[in-house]
């Protein structure tokens, strides 16, 4: 059939449909997002007088906070995503057992997610200070003797690891629920029989979890982790809320620092732009790397 019929209108419409459906998003981003982003990108490659330069990045790399910020960010990302994943998976597995009251349990577990920053801020500030409720509670429970205190936010000694641990825990507390939701949905789609087969063929709880549940849940886990990864790299608010600027530098905190703390310097805008670009590049690379390592692309190809 060599006769090439003219493509019917219906056919053309049919092929254009997905693009038309995506068009609003593209337009929306074009209006609200692309312009400022381009401005930042341009800003990162020009000096104050608008001439092309790579100096901004050199400045960022020479910034004494850059490498600490990078390391801290890396630690936060690796540890917090791991902890949050384990915590979320644990809770999801628990709720998935569908015990009596599981729906209300689920709701209670979601509460941290719903709290506004005002509430969490007040909560941790009043909790973590030397005369705060955490120490009070420990005192009532007998873990602290009278006059004894724990300086949660690190007393005079600047112990970065301790602060990192604290930030990670507090962040996990608030973030685990949203990760749990994704994993829970995945678990509920998982065939019960696959697990049961695991038990019948000799598995105990742990082997079935490791060899069957988690591998099958892989796509869901990927979604959960990738979303979390992206936001973990961008943690800053809780840090600034608890510790102020500069005490525990992380990448995005640096951007905010140049935007809000020292906006007047010649180099402020360039530094912020430089950091911004670096962060985006790091996030994208990490995300891509994760997707590649976890095999998401491979699957896409075979399906």
């Amino acid at each position, binding site marked *: 059939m060599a006769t090439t019929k003219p493509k019917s209108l219906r056919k053309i419409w049919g092929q254009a449909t997905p693009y038309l459906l995506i068009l609003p998003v593209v337009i929306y981003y074009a209006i609200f997002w692309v312009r400022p982003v381009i401005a930042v990108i341009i800003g990162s490659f020009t000096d104050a007088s608008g001439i092309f330069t790579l100096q901004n990045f050199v400045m960022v790399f020479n910034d004494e906070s850059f490498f600490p910020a990078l390391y801290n960010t890396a630690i936060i990302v690796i540890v917090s995503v791991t902890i949050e994943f384990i915590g979320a998976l644990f809770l999801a597995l628990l709720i998935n057992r569908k015990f009596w009251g599981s729906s209300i349990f689920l709701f209670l577990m979601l509460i941290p997610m719903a709290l506004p920053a005002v509430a969490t801020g007040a909560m941790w500030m009043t909790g973590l200070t030397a005369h705060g409720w955490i120490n009070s509670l420990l005192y009532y429970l007998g873990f602290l003797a009278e006059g004894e205190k724990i300086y949660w936010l690190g007393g005079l000694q600047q112990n970065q690891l301790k602060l990192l641990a604290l930030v990670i825990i507090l962040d996990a507390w608030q973030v685990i629920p949203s990760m749990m939701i994704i994993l829970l949905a995945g678990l509920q789609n998982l*065939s019960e*029989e*696959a697990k*049961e*087969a*695991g*038990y*019948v*063929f*000799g*598995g*105990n709880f742990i*082997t079935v979890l490791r*060899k*069957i549940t988690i*591998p*099958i849940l*892989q796509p869901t886990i990927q979604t959960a982790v990738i979303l979390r990864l992206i936001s973990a790299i961008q943690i800053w608010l809780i840090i600034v809320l608890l510790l102020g600027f500069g005490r525990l530098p992380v990448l995005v905190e640096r951007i905010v620092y140049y935007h809000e703390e020292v906006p007047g310097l010649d180099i402020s805008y360039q530094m912020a732009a430089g950091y911004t670009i670096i962060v985006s590049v790091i996030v994208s690379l990490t995300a891509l790397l994760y997707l590649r390592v976890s095999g998401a692309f491979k699957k896409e190809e*075979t*399906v």
Partner: protein
Amino acid sequence: MATLEIKNLTKKFGRKIIAVDNISLEVHDGEFLVLLGPSGCGKTTTMRMIAGLEEVTDGTILIGDVDVTELPPRKRNVSMVFQNYAIWPHMTVYENISYALKLKHMGKSEIDQVVHDVARMTKISELLERLPTQLSGGQQQRVAVARAIAVSPKVFLMDEPLSNLDAKLRVSMRTELKTIHASAKATTVFVTHDQSEAMSIADRIVIMQGGKIVQIGSPEEVYEKSADLFVADFIGTPPTNFFDVELKKTGETLHLVHPHFDLSLSPKNAALLQGYDKDRLVLGVRPENILLANEQAKIMSTTVLVVEPQGSHQVIAFKLDENIIKMVAPAQPKMKTGTTIHLNFKQEALRFFDPDSTLAIGN
């Protein structure tokens, strides 16, 4: 291999739902037992209790004389083919089969040996490196079977392993399963709601209804000597035709009187009904026992409603009042809708049921 014994097994879900109601049962060593019954009758629940996937409300399960009632699945030495196979989608066929063996700390080379053996037996040797998504339904099914036989279990459980297959594949898989069983001689419990499947592969059939066992027997027994109306209706396609008839005695002969026919019973049949004192009963006649007759031998005449040619035979449906009656006739001569036919019953194969208790009379 071992025997499997179930004693007074009961399973309740919550307070009200009694899924399995006090059943007892013995499966002999190497036997192929089929649990058959309509949807929801408790087959899967029974099987899951045997596997240890469902807690027992009451009763005992013995495998090879060991009480396993309280043991977790992995300690029962059973294996199972799940209804939808439950092949692990993230593992290759090889990994699927070897999972259980690894958990038994079997050596690498030994595992390899076993996997290849069962793969050969189930004809999936060339598929070992594939992922389940790359397999057709029938192939998946064979993987599930391979995985189950690889562990050489004491008891082999299969929960409707064929129900997802298309008609043709189902029939051929049936034969294959039977062949595998014949060579492995594993004590097997096979669940199905397809009576023709049950008939064709069972050593013995257990028919369940509403959580209870209605009849246990060989395929021929349950087909020819169905214990009650339910079994008679459930077993056989098309099912048994039932006629409400009146029992009349004219001299020495017993008559079954129906608006459309009046059948005088053979002495053998009449003997069966001795001792039955009600004046109504239900007559059961299997489709192949309704015979095309000539004018003289007929007990009734009717017109053909629908004909379903089946190649080797044809199913003829006709109506008596509101009831559709089906009979099986040889493929030739071909029948047409509207044709008048004359019929008779095969006396040796008639079955009688008590309309109140629904039980067969004179068994």
